[in-house]
């Protein structure tokens, strides 16, 4: 399993990497594309080499903090339709507190540090770059202005 994938996420593969008989608590987080406004999907792009390096650093930090836990993740790239997962994180530990904590740590660090970018696709064919707070990127024309970019079909 690779950390970045252009295919739909497979939760079973994530679980297989972290579960074991001595880890009785397993936590899975899935981030899925919401149907905000007229969004039909999100096109994810990344600085692939840095994203993999950053994921390895984040997972290493989680491993150091919760030594009995195992955590992994996969982030999807390319077009992800509404309702499908763009990121999956699985954490397993002897007890649930560690599993929840490790999973939470990883998603929060991913949000802050992973060099990945979202371009929302709208029903009218326009696109909008998104910043972490969910607001349209200030350098991007508003889709309502009629200046949005069209995705070739």
């Amino acid at each position, binding site marked *: 399993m690779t950390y970045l994938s252009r295919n739909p996420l497979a939760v079973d593969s994530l679980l297989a990497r972290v579960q074991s008989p001595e880890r009785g608590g397993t936590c899975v987080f899935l981030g899925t594309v919401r149907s905000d406004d007229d969004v039909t999907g999100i096109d*994810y792009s990344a600085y692939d080499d840095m994203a993999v390096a*950053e994921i390895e650093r984040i997972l290493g930090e989680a491993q150091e903090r919760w030594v009995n836990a195992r955590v992994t993740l996969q982030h999807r790239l390319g077009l992800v339709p509404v309702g499908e997962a763009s990121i999956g994180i699985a954490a397993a530990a002897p007890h649930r507190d560690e599993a929840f904590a490790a999973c939470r740590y990883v998603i929060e660090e991913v949000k802050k540090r992973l*060099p990945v970018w979202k371009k929302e696709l709208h029903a009218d064919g326009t696109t909008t770059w998104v910043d972490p707070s969910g607001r349209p990127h200030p350098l991007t024309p508003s889709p309502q202005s009629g200046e949005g970019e069209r995705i070739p079909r």
Partner: protein
Amino acid sequence: MPNITVRFFARYAELTGCDTTAVRVSGSSATVADVLARVRETVPGARDLPPRPLAAVNLRQVKLDARVEDGDEVALLPPLSGG
């Protein structure tokens, strides 16, 4: 003179019309800010980059006063929105 590879992503690649360029910066104490200034001079569209974009050197996020060396890869990163 350090020769630096500069990479653009997402919105910044659209602004500059390219994914990658190379610039030379003078002096042994050149910084990411110096690279950014050189990019603004030489790459069409780069003047529209924000004054202080996020940056990385060799796959690690750094501040703009971080030093660069010959052969480094500097990346200019739009606001991150992974997850």
